[in-house]
């Protein structure tokens, strides 16, 4: 076999794999997108490419008289953004101290985080429910935000600590010689260099509440307080009048903010921001 032939085979196989993957990923997406434009309500009559597409499901969702969808959207955005902001702040602080300081309990703390992140959030469902009842956080967004933020800390701290460990300590020391204190080093030197990992942590913290159903379902009671996941589920879980096509339309719109966030953070996902600071 010549070199050219083997290259051809290699390329063909690579492209085949990529195509298969793309199909696996895109098929359900297209299906949801397609069914959101279907005129009927049922799942059976839906087609990926509807014969007579309609926007009526979207109109329904945006009609405040008939649907709480926009309210749920607002709730979800509020919760996701708050979770993102608080997670980034808390995780940055914890990760920085674990990465830069040596203190009693550091090792055990890290180990606890490691074990904690192995347990999924909903495993603590009963505990969360009891806690929320005692603290009167049932049916409040604050309660949800607190639990989501708490859930983000262990894994994200590990992620971020790993990244901060790669930022040379010489930079801290150099800043110390320049006269900077701990907080200034954190804000002016380390944080700007940690942008790539901050965006990853932020994105995770934003997506997690959007994708969560169980905890939100348990904690939220009134329809006006629902998040998207809970609200949309309500659309299809009714005994009569399931509206899968409306559900599909609602689901499509959920992806918009995530896609936007990806676009915003994309430039930070490239590594090598620390290149050039030190030799190596």
């Amino acid at each position, binding site marked *: 076999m010549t070199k050219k032939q083997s290259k051809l085979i290699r390329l063909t196989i690579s492209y085949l794999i990529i195509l298969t993957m793309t199909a696996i990923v895109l098929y359900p997406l297209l299906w949801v997108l397609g069914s959101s434009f279907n005129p009927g309500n049922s799942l059976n009559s839906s087609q990926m490419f509807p014969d007579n597409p309609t926007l009526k499901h979207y109109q329904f969702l945006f009609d405040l008289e008939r649907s709480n969808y926009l309210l749920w959207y607002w709730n979800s955005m509020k919760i996701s953004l708050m979770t993102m902001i608080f997670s980034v702040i808390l995780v940055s602080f914890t990760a920085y101290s674990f990465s830069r300081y040596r203190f009693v309990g550091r090792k055990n703390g890290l180990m606890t985080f490691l074990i904690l992140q192995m347990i999924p959030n909903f495993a603590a469902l009963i505990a969360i429910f009891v806690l929320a009842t005692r603290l009167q956080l049932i049916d409040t967004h604050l309660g949800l935000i607190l639990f989501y933020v708490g859930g983000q800390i262990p894994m994200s701290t590990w992620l971020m600590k790993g990244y901060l460990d790669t930022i040379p300590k010489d930079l801290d020391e150099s800043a*110390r010689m320049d*006269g900077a204190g701990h907080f200034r080093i954190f804000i002016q030197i380390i944080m700007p260099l940690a942008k790539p990992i901050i965006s990853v942590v932020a994105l995770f913290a934003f997506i997690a509440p959007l994708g969560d159903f169980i905890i939100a379902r348990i904690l939220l009671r009134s329809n006006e307080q629902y998040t998207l996941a809970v609200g949309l589920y309500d659309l299809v879980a009714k005994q009569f009048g399931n509206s899968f096509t409306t559900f599909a339309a609602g689901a499509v719109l959920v992806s918009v903010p995530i896609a936007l966030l990806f676009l915003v953070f994309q430039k930070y996902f490239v590594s090598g921001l620390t290149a050039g600071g030190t030799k190596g």
Partner: protein
Amino acid sequence: MTTLTLKNVTKRYDNKVQAVTDFNLEVEDREFIVFVGPSGCGKSTTLRMIAGLEDISEGDFLIDNKRMNDVASKDRDIAMVFQNYALYPHMSVYDNMAYGLKIRKVPKDEIKRRVDDAAKILGLEKYLDRKPKALSGGQRQRVALGRAIVRDASVFLMDEPLSNLDSKLRVQMRSEIIKLHNRLNTTTIYVTHDQTEAMTMASRIVIMKDGVIQQVGTPKDVYDNPDNMFVGGFIGSPSMNFLNGTVVNGQFKIGNVLVTLTDDQQARLKAYEGKEVVLGIRPEHVTDDNGAYDVTHAHRVPAFIEVAELTGAEQILYANLEGQDFIGRVDAQNAIERGQTVDLVFHMERAHFFDKETELRIGAVDTI
């Protein structure tokens, strides 16, 4: 005016490793002190204690007679240049240099003036807007120096600043740092493992090994009168030859070869009659006949040449005498080839003798 004093400074880590032991040094104003030693000898640790980046376990560190042990780095008025530059990657060259001044709330126009001045001295004017990653190694090193210069600090610390540069650039930066020191006259402590850097730059050298000072002195002093075998072997390239032998009747006996001693040496070695001592002699004091400028005390030894390296101007001979290796340097004109046995001349008036047990130089002030 800035003087530094280190009194009985000791560094011990939690795991009981003793990195620096009983370090005593007075650094005069405007001095250029070089700490030199093999890696792990505690020179960087000492520097970092001076900088305030490491705590001092025992002893006192004073700047201008004020105790500094518990003063934070930022309040010590010290600027430091790191081995791997430690430039802030997200800031431009200008901001890198200005950072320390901004923190100290120096007025903007003053910052600009100082940074521009430093950039001019270091030839960085064109690069002020660039990020560090768009600079070459040498330029980055200049920025690191610039950052120290603009601070106008009373002490400069440099931790192996040239070790990441290629050899040509290293020689060039070496002379630039010396020029810079002559111009700014800031008290400087410079750490290196390269004895050539130490010899060429220092006003005084501090040679360290295993956390202990071996000798402190001017380059010439340290080179000509090493206190012990370690200093003799560490300073100078190729390093000093050490030959084992016995003192017999005022002569030095290497195997079956007898070498005549000077009167001075005979007097010093009186106490060692019949004992084994070590002869230390530098390669440039082992020549062939033609290079024997002073034959009074010169002594010829028959040496078997194992390797002869021609460096251009001279020839480095790796020779063997009675089973002991040594190195000689001869003029390249006198082509000597390997495999020959030739008479080499030991210029005994430049030789030293060391105690075999203590490895101290016999006749050094504190050994008499």
